[in-house]
């Protein structure tokens, strides 16, 4: 992973000192609430329902074991002993005291971490594929480009007071695991006919109140122009994006209003004055230099497959975990291992300090001391020898991190909802738990195949409910918690926004409604067909009929 040098460190330390002074001036009354708000947001600090919430940046989801240990230590010393991993590969602490946030940031700086630009109307943490560098279907490792973008965007003088937040995702594989089509800018690494590396550029995707799939404005951008082209897009957005209504301020609304062609033309015009600027042009050296940080770990050339085969034959529990919680690695003899943060009874994405420390040790022992956060709110040990898998499984199981449910209905994405979030209409964690209890038969879940269920506590859609096969959105009906269901969304290559099923259902009926939808699917599916395929074949009606017939 990227290694800080003295300049990177100094910048982070200076940012801590700056924020410490800003906090002091706020507490002394020298900065008004309104003046402090954007400053604290740009450093990841929200004021939540019960206490401030601090969101710490995990650049494109990559984390070292010592960083994870520091997160554990922060959870223990400043919070209530746990942290919450988010859909944008970051971590949130829900209970820090405002006055102590500068100290937390200073501790983070010790392990080259920060909270810069994890919130606010600026360029946010860039996200990527959690299988970057190991996926068999990869065209090119996206992480060097993510780091280049991270540095370019950090404290960018021109783009720190944008109309609204701005999210960039980069995918380097054939299968899009970074949801590039629902980001303000989505970048897909591609090769042209001459074999040169470039990017397909999408703009204007996004979730929230108005979910929109991004549009391609450039089929092939040579990688050397990456930064100048981003700068051109951001400038057009900064100048023309709406600032009069925060619900219409995202770039997707601008792209829609201008039309894709017009928007693209405007970007090209702006780009013409930027594209040859030497400071925005990446030389091959710059890229090679960055790539060196992401070279694969030294791996064994051959791994004896006998221990794995024996363990698979001997222990059905292990075999089940292997099948569902590990994925193919580019190098034979290795697997990538999901650390499931979706155990029954635990809020999705939550992890205790003890679990973090245990997993940090496991990553040192089995996976080169590195970890990744997936946008499905699980962790990943990306480089595990297959002859170590059984031992690793036992260790994970001892910490409650081996629930073999990755990719199943209970591997739900879920925002913090009413329990923590000041904006929430309805609870999400308790509903996730109710669903988890309703579907506690693993074999039944496996038969259903891959099923993505996402839940958000309000229209802001932090839980990406629109992009789920089954989405659940908390709404408020006269002070009561209700839930709107959507079907047929996807954030993969076949991206689609889910369709609204019908009237929202009351809280106590959500898990029964889920049961009805799943039963309907089971009746309608042909053979091993997946939920999305069935849905696309039969449409909304059969689901609607069944659900509302039973609840009427």
């Amino acid at each position, binding site marked *: 992973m990227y290694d800080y040098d003295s300049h990177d460190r100094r*910048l982070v330390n200076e940012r801590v000192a700056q924020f410490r002074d800003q906090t002091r001036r706020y507490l002394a009354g020298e900065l008004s609430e309104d*003046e402090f708000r954007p400053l604290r947001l740009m450093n990841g600090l929200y004021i939540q329902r019960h206490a401030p919430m601090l969101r710490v940046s995990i650049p494109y989801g990559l984390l070292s074991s010592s960083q994870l240990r520091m997160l554990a230590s922060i959870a223990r010393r400043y919070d209530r002993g746990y942290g919450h991993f988010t859909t944008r590969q970051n971590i949130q602490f829900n209970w820090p005291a405002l006055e102590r946030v500068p100290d937390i940031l200073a501790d983070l700086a010790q392990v080259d971490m920060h909270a810069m630009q994890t919130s606010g*109307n600026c360029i946010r943490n860039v996200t990527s594929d959690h299988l970057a560098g190991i996926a068999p279907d990869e065209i090119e490792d996206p992480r060097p480009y993510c780091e280049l973008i991270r540095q*370019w965007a950090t404290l960018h*003088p021109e783009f720190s*007071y944008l109309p609204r937040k701005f999210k960039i995702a980069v995918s380097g594989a054939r299968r899009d695991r970074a949801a590039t089509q629902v980001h303000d800018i989505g970048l897909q690494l591609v090769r042209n006919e001459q074999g040169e590396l470039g990017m397909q550029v999408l703009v204007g995707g996004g979730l929230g109140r108005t979910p929109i799939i991004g549009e391609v404005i450039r089929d092939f951008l040579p990688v050397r122009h990456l930064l100048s082209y981003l700068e051109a897009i951001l400038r057009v957005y900064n100048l023309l994006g709406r600032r009069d209504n925060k619900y219409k301020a995202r770039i997707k609304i601008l792209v829609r209003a201008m039309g894709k062609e017009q928007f693209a033309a405007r970007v090209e015009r702006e780009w013409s004055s930027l594209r040859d600027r*030497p*400071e925005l042009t*990446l030389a091959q*050296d710059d890229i090679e230099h960055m790539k060196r940080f992401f070279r694969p770990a030294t791996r064994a050339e051959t791994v004896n497959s006998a221990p794995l085969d024996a363990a698979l034959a001997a222990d059905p529990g292990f075999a089940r975990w292997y099948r569902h919680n590990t994925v193919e690695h580019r190098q034979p003899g290795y697997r990538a291992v999901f650390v499931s943060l979706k155990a029954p009874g635990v809020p999705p994405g939550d992890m205790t300090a003890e679990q973090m420390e245990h997993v940090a040790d496991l990553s040192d022992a089995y996976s080169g001391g590195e970890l990744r956060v997936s946008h499905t709110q699980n962790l990943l040990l990306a480089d595990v020898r297959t002859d170590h898998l059984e031992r690793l499984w036992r260790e994970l199981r001892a910490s409650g991190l081996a629930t073999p449910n990755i990719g199943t209905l209970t591997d739900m994405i879920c925002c913090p909802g009413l329990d923590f979030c000041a904006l929430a209409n309805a609870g999400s964690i308790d509903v996730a738990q109710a669903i988890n209890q309703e579907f506690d038969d693993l074999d039944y879940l496996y038969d259903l195949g891959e099923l993505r269920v996402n839940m958000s506590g309000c229209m802001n859609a932090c839980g990406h409910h629109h992009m789920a096969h089954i989405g659940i959105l908390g709404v408020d009906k006269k002070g009561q918690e209700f839930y709107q269901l959507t079907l047929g969304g996807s954030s993969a290559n076949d991206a689609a926004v889910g369709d609204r099923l019908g009237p929202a259902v009351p809280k106590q009926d959500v898990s029964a409604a889920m049961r009805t939808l799943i039963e309907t699917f089971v009746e309608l599916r042909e053979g091993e067909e997946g939920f999305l395929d069935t849905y696309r074949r039969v449409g909304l009606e059969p689901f609607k009929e069944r659900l509302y017939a039973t609840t009427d």
Partner: protein
Amino acid sequence: MQQLIRNRELVEADRWRLVADEESLPGTGDLILPLDRYLEERAASDDRGSGRRGLLVDGTVPAEDIAPLLPELDLVAIRFPSFADGRGYSLARQLRLNHRYTGELRAVGNVLRDQLAYMERVGFDSYLLEEGRDPRDALQAFREFSGYYQNAPLEQLPRIQRRARRKAA
């Protein structure tokens, strides 16, 4: 009284004066005129009086619209209606980089300490602080960081590239 910072120093006596919309045009002195007024006066007469001329615009004005005026201007003031409205940053950069404007570039309006360093880095060199703000405190803003990732106006290359090339050399 509003305090002015120019080139990271407090300016005690600023010679520039902003002419209000209804005010009749003084014959002498360095005057800053709002865009409409500037165009009006310019159309009416070639006589610029004895003083220098400055222009006041909002961040919403397209850079191309004022580009033809730049050669005759010694100052451009960009107004920030709210410190959170970042359009002025892009306009400043367009004027400096695309249109090679080299005169004074002044930030006016809701100009606060915590944005000054960002403003400097897009090409502003003077800042009219909002009423009642401590200018000495504001001057600290320029010293908070000793370097950035993006290139500063006088650097050839940003840090990403300087480092790579140093290593490669």
